[in-house]
């Protein structure tokens, strides 16, 4: 298609820009204006209660740079986001390949594996908090199969607690990634597999030469969703460990919550929220650009 023709087509089919005014106004009213007002408080010392507060410029942000708890929380957030993204999508893809095969129980398995994603996060977190307790089902199971020496204080040990959170998130959402991958897999025409099989390619070669490139849109969506979810993770952390022991599992989100609602440092907490927003935006934009380039290259 020539660029002249593209221009003509756009001129003929694109609606006038002011058609977007009603939607944009609503978006501005419910999203942009409240958010901007929220950002304003990041430059104040508002305690969440007192209507008399002072504008303090960038002090909240400079304090944030020197705050060990905040730095630690940012590090935990990055660790969780990366681990969740890798594991959730790895497991999700394997499950998708499994339930996309011709096994008899595939429909039942799809429902079963997707089921945890349908349960509220807080419910699964409390369930796992009991299962992972010192006398919970996990330790009892280890005892039962003669592995009593492997018993751990899963959520009370600062070295393990963060990984238990990752495990719970992956358990809950691997099925969600699987569903998106299955949709992607089903859009790949059977003929391509058959042609490749006739040409003598094995399953590994077929995966890398056919499945991976044609699955690129599903990979993009899954990675985007899991990295954003991982960075913003709150419910599971709060219910499983409350950010503890000490600050061993605090993420930016739990710190925002504690600083605002427990310590009454709303201004500081909103400054943290602004930082989180920037991290989410940068990470998702970078990832989206990279993956979109990949997608174009693959197609």
């Amino acid at each position, binding site marked *: 298609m020539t660029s002249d023709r593209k221009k003509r087509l756009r001129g003929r089919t694109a609606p006038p820009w002011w058609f977007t005014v009603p939607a944009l106004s609503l978006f501005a009213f419910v999203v*942009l204006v409240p*958010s901007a007002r929220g950002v304003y408080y990041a430059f104040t010392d508002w305690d969440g*209660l007192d209507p008399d507060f002072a504008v303090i410029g960038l002090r909240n942000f400079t304090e944030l740079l020197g705050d060990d708890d905040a730095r630690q929380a940012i590090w935990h957030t990055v660790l969780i986001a990366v681990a969740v993204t890798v594991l959730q999508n790895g497991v999700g893809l394997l499950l998708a390949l499994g339930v996309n095969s011709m096994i008899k129980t595939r429909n039942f398995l799809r429902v079963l594996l997707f089921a945890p994603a349908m349960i509220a996060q807080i419910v699964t977190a409390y369930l796992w908090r009991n299962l992972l307790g010192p006398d919970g089902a996990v330790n009892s199971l280890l005892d039962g199969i003669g592995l009593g020496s492997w018993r751990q*204080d899963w959520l009370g*040990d600062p070295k393990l607690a963060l990984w238990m959170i990752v495990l719970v998130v992956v358990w809950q959402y691997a099925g969600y990634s699987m569903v998106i991958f299955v949709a992607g897999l089903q859009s790949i025409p059977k003929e391509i597999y058959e042609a490749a099989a006739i040409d003598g390619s094995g399953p590994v070669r077929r995966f890398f030469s056919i499945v991976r490139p044609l699955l690129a849109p599903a990979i993009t969506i899954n990675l985007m969703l899991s990295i954003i979810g991982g960075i913003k993770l709150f419910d599971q952390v709060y219910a499983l460990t409350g950010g503890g022991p000490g600050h*061993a599992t605090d993420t930016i989100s739990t710190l925002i919550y504690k600083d605002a609602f427990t310590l009454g440092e709303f201004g500081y907490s909103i400054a943290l929220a602004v930082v989180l927003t920037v991290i989410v*935006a940068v990470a998702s*934009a970078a990832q989206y650009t990279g993956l979109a380039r990949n997608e174009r290259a693959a197609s």
Partner: protein
Amino acid sequence: MKKIFAAIAAATLLTACSSGTKAGSGSGGDNKTLTIASVDQGSIEKVVEAFKAANPGVTVNLSTSGADQYQQQIRTQLASGTAPDVMTVWPGNGNPGATYVIAKPGYLLDLSGQPWASKLPDAFKKVAQYEGKTYNAVFGLNGIGAVYNDQALTKSGLKAPGTWTDLLDFCRAAAGKGTPAFALGIQDNWVTQIALYALVATDVYSADKDFDTKMAAGQATFAGSPWTTAMDKYQQMNTAGCFQKNPLGTSYEASQTLAATGKTLGIIQGNWIIGLLKKKNPAGTFTMKALPATDDPARFIMPAAAGAGYGVNAKTKNKDLAITFITYVMSPAGMKIFNEAQGSLPTLPDAGTAVDPGLADLTTFVKDNRTVPFMDQLWPNAKVQQTMLSGLQEVFSGQAKPADVLKDMDTDYKAGS
């Protein structure tokens, strides 16, 4: 697409924080419907029933929640004008739902003119007032000590220890029998402070009753005071096997089950635990004693202080009804129901409350003036306590040293209000 994601993320994170700061009323303003938010689960319900019986035609919309959740939610409600007419308010300062914190920006109604306000003993007035005006109807007194499961103790053949040396021996013997002395559920971080307060009361305040005044004047520090001794003793108790295994993975709820069912011989907690233990083991009896923090019983002091009371929303449209409720809570009848249900002691002398027999020791300590308020009630900000709570979890998990936690508490204390 990128911009949309960024905007959605911003909205999700920030809209919750962008509401106004004018207080409003909880319900309609006909003085027939009262909204109450409370943390007194299990006891306020009985008081509300009795209040409704005494005031026919009145409807009460009651919501109860745990202390952590409540403190977080009440601030948002006050700031956004959706707070209830009557609400739980903690005495003094030092936590986000405390009298000074909420009265300072003008969210609480001045209750100084109520007849009970002038009758409150001085120790309670100090924490129920802000700048000389009474804002908090404190009805009950709570204490902290070692609560023993009498049946489990008898079965173990051990006796409740009377000195610090006895305590460590008791812990070792109990651990040897497979039933550790005390249940400790510090997965919920507020629990970490309880045993420490029991030790600090004797270690710090038996030698220096004016420690709080000195702290406020900058003449004393946590790190340079017997708080270090108390911290050290807390860890000695842990090493001696006073607590069950894995306390950091044990919740407050799970610790109650351990103590109620005799899997431990007791629990170091506030007197409110007795009611909760009896719910889990109705046949059990439980006795509270001072935690022996030294070898000289004459020096024992118990932490005991006004528990959470009730305040009235300054912008309530049901002022008369709200005050009628507060008056009922502070009347002998209301106070009796409340304190008997909570297992606490009344703050006014003429309440006629039947005190749980297991609290005889606490009653004696209160009568003999051998108590100190919970330490955080007079701290200048909420951060000192939060630093202590997460710091203690770090000490228990080997991530921090007690001395560093005390230094951090000093830093936060000096930051002021």
